[in-house]
């Protein structure tokens, strides 16, 4: 039995997930919470945001994000892919910074324009 807090809405129900019995969820107040509880233990994923170096722009860093959620256990490895990257302005919102992060099919993209 694993306990966790549902984050789908601000109510923050305390969920209990029975990992031995087919990941049955209790403590939720709605279906979204049930789905969250199950997924959070079977396949937790996160959107990762960070910054990379940029030259020729008004700032020295440009924000980036994954354009989808990646498995939680890959977060630190994914962050390493950003080390040493240096972009040159102009960069447009959505420009791909790292393609196909660790075989997930998800990319790091720029999250703003920097001209």
């Amino acid at each position: 039995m694993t306990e966790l807090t549902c984050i789908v809405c601000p109510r923050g129900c305390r969920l209990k997930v029975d990992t031995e019995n087919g990941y049955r969820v209790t403590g939720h107040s709605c279906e979204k919470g049930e789905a969250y509880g199950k997924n959070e233990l079977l396949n937790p994923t996160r959107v990762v945001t960070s910054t990379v170096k940029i030259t020729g722009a008004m700032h020295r860093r440009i924000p980036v994000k994954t354009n989808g959620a990646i498995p939680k256990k890959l977060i630190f490895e994914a962050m390493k892919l950003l080390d040493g990257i240096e972009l040159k302005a102009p960069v447009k919102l959505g420009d791909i910074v790292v393609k196909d992060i660790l075989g997930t099919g998800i990319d790091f993209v720029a999250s703003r324009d920097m001209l």
Partner: protein
Amino acid sequence: MYDLIVIGGGPAGLAAACEAYEQGLKNILIIERDRELGGILNQCIHNGFGLHYFKEELTGPEYAGRFIKMLNDTSVEVKLDTMVLDITKNREVHAVNTSDGYQILKTRSVILAMGCRERTRGAISIPGDRPSGVFTAGAAQRYMNIEGYMVGRRVVILGSGDIGLIMARRMTLEGAEVLACVELNPYSSGLNRNIVQCLGDYNIPLYLSHTITKIEGSGRVERVVVSRVDDSTKKPIPGTEISFDCDTVLLSVGLIPENELTKNAGIAIDPRTNGAIVYENMETSLPGVFACGNVVHVHDLVDYVTEESKRAGRAAAAFAKGLSQTDEKVLAMKTGNAVTYTVPQKLRPMRIEKLADIFFRVNRVFGEASILVFDGDGKQIAKFKRDYLVPGEMEHIVLPRKLLDTAGGDSLTVSIEEVQA
């Protein structure tokens, strides 16, 4: 002569200007002291913005970007790198920048959208040395995300406000070790989601009912001492000290609306919000001057800033066009049990089209509870049920105009009643 001058180009100023333009105002100017638009959102690179307003999860720069793009399709004028120094009672805006020098600008209406600043260590006074390595969480966020400096390696965070939580994750991802997040209250003031995804995901301990009682170090921070506090007196309990060897302390102990301009203009301030007292349409005590966003009260969600700012933009447009209205009745909003403030503080029922939005915060955690509204005669006129109420999240109720027209007396009181289990 401008129709409208908006002071501050953050999400509040952007939404207000776009809306006033939509309403037909032609000569609108936004004055922003920074070198770009977007306000604090430019440094909030994490995602979680826009779920209510755009129905998708955006990062701060993306959220700001949408409004900047909208603005670029209008004829709204923008002055960057320009600081507003003063607003006078007859609505003259005094501003200064390096290209135009000192300017006095005339306008029919003004929107105040200056946002807020962070409380600093001075404002909460921690005993001990005064070494370097103590930052507000927002300053650290700016150093890291915009300027690209890492502010420390071993970090203790004081306060569990959202900015502190976001920075705990950010610094961990960049290789720092965050040893603890220390919160004076028995609950966190941050969003549940941030507690789970910023602390929980990285096993960063949250010490509730604790505070930093000492900062030590010569030159740079070397150690902090954390103690448990008594929940009723908030005094440290001797013998509960834990020490952490660290080089950095981040303060995430709250935000204060930035209202020097407002006060100098003689606009009435609510001591509970530290922002201007506003009417239902975000008008301040100075006619033709409106306020919206964090300068009025601290918001946790930018989506609400946008909604409120559009309301201010609409009202400023109506004022600038000279649409006059007579008010037969003004209702003062009062705070009852467990309610710390309301925005707006005053309602003019005649100016409300159909519904009045009331925002407020509670002073403690509630399970199942009812929000009750009483009129000036003490009669209960509305009741809203909630499954939970927490201080960290702004609450919102909507009152129909009809109810306000028939309300007795000249005030309304918002109060919380716990539902006994």
